[in-house]
């Protein structure tokens, strides 16, 4: 098992390097850069910028150097100083920008993931064991609605409904009276109140998916012979359900952790914009629009790295859960 994990981590290194290269190149691909975009904006507003000034800016930002050199400089900074570069748009270090947002983003994403599992796995189990019952149809209906309704629309509607009925504005992270207040218990409670709605909305669609996946997997497993064996052995229905088929049916859900993590991070862009939450989603959107290349590349790279790490985590979990994977891995 340890050897398996170690081998997986070693194979991660080339993948991560490749990811950094692709993240960097993808952001460089569109024509122009931060300087040409700024000059265009100035020109549009009627201000004349002379060629020399443009050249000076390009040189100052280091944009005149070839791509390969800029990539190496960027990577050197990340690997040796942990420095992700400079954001032109914010005139700040990328690290500072991300440090303010990534913890919140991660907290919301992971909480949303856990919340969606907490809701969907029991519902999926119920739906599968009570197939075609009234509640199965009700849960299926709700699941499809959650799946089909865009999150930002639900966010808009619910934000309005909450504001109209209770007078509480769920937008942003803190109510206005706490915005500049020092950290306090009241502020924390206020923060939690503001996080309920985004959490609910972000976990909505993945809950719908997970209910369907859990239900379908479990229905397949329930027909398997080993379940009948366990029942024939005299195990109680609930006991055998949890020990045998559920353990098998959650495998595919665990194996999707890898891409659920970044999916939640990027999927909540619109929700975050609508609800005014400062996560990495809106930051990435603005950075790409403004061709703030180091910021955009850093976010893309971090999201991709999260995917890879998520996949690693799910593979390790799967190996822990399913002996066939564990042994298949070490045998070769």
């Amino acid at each position, binding site marked *: 098992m340890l050897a398996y994990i170690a081998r997986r981590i070693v194979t991660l290194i080339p993948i991560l390097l490749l990811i950094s290269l692709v993240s960097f190149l993808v952001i460089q691909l569109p024509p122009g850069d931060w300087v040409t975009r700024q000059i265009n904006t100035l020109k549009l507003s009627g201000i004349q910028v002379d060629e020399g000034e443009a050249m000076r800016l390009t040189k100052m930002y280091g944009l005149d150097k070839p791509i390969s050199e800029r990539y190496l400089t960027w990577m050197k900074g990340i690997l040796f100083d942990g420095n992700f570069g400079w954001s032109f748009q914010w005139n700040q270090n990328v690290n500072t920008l991300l440090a303010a947002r990534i913890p919140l983003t991660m907290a919301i994403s992971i909480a949303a993931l856990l919340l969606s599992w907490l809701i969907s796995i029991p519902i999926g189990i119920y739906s599968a064991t009570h197939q075609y019952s009234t509640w199965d149809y009700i849960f299926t209906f709700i699941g499809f609605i959650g799946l089909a309704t865009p999150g930002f629309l639900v966010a808009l509607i619910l934000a309005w409904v909450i504001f109209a009925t209770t007078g509480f504005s769920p937008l942003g992270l803190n109510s206005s009276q706490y915005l500049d207040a020092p950290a306090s218990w009241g502020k924390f409670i206020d923060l939690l109140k503001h996080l309920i709605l985004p959490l609910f909305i972000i976990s909505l669609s993945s809950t719908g998916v997970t209910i369907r996946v859990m239900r379908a997997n479990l229905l397949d497993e329930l027909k398997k*012979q*080993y379940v009948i064996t366990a029942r024939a*052995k005299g195990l109680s*229905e609930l006991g055998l359900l949890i020990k045998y088929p559920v*353990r098998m049916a959650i495998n595919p859900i665990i194996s999707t952790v890898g891409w659920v993590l970044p999916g939640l991070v990027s999927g909540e862009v619109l929700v975050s914009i609508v609800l005014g939450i400062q996560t990495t989603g809106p930051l990435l959107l603005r950075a790409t629009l403004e061709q703030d290349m180091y910021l955009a590349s850093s976010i893309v790279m971090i999201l991709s790295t999260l995917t890879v790490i998520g996949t690693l985590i799910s593979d390790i979990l799967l190996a822990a859960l399913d002996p066939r994977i564990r*042994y298949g891995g070490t045998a070769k």
Partner: protein
Amino acid sequence: MVCATPRIPIRDKPWLDWSNQNDNIMTNSNNLFIEVRNLQTYFYLYEGTVRAVDGVSYNIEKGKSLGVIGESGCGKSVTAQSIMRIVPTPPGKEVGGEVLLHLQGPNGPQIVDVLKLKADSEQMRAIRWKEVGMIFQEPMTSFSPLFTVGNQIIEAILLHIPGTTKKAARQQAIELLGKVGIPQPTRLVDAYPHQLSGGMRQRAMIAMALSCNPKLLIADEPTTALDVTIEAQILELIRSLQEEFGMALMYISHDLAVVSEMSDDIMVMYLGRVMEHAPMEEMFNNPLHPYTQALWRSIPKIEGPLARLQTISGGLPNPYLIQKGCPFFSRCEKRIPGLCDGARPPLIEVSPSHTVSCFLYDSQARSKVPTEQPNATQQSATQQSGVS
């Protein structure tokens, strides 16, 4: 008439000196373990109701074995599942009849009708595996792939034999695995099912079925998925363990030769009904039901010239149709139109232990036929060829 030559001569035939001690199979209850009376298990599907088991009755005595033969879909597995109450519900349901188990209760002998118990009740769960064990058709899937074989055997022991420590249960599992012929049981008790071959897994399954010393072992086509050599070993193993543990055995198969090896009594089923029930010897020497006779003719012979095997003409009737008469009517060579398709043939006791469900042996019913049947010449011809 063709006498079956068992395909695999495994051992001597102790059933040759098997003498039938009961005068009436329904009344001698001292030694009975299970009495099934008029069991009806139906499946309610969208397309209609399938009467998978439709009025089946049989007994098995302690230590004896009953072989159940029939084509696929004739209800032989459902009959067994009904005893354990593991028929998938919905769509299946035991709608009628009695399944009486003669159990040894805390206050002496006790007769329990398992159909009266709730399928997931504590009493039913206590009967499963402790009183009635089962070996399934597919050794590949009958163990959960996520737990070791030992874990799943120990689980059953801990569940049914209170006061067993984990260590003792493990020791017992190792002994059982050794008994069913698994090499290095101390090591393989910790093996996962996918690390064992099909034959090994079926041996482990047998070990698991025996783990709580059941009084009745149901073997539901346990060798279907195995090759012939392994099949012979497994059959031999079940037979010897049955003797050693003194269990009753219900052996379900569509393989006539195998059933003849395994059983004291044989019951032939067709479309959820019992066609014929007799001791093994009697069944092979003197099959009475046209369906049994047709089955026997389809067994390949080792002696004599190679000839094309005789098949039973026609196919199984639509299982959703409710048969007013004999279910075998449409394929029967000796059918009596007007009689066999009009009413359900009664179970006729031709000799004390031999019952057959066919009008050919019901002289009373047959004597009435000519008045009901307009085409008398055709019918008498059928009769002449029918009675040998």
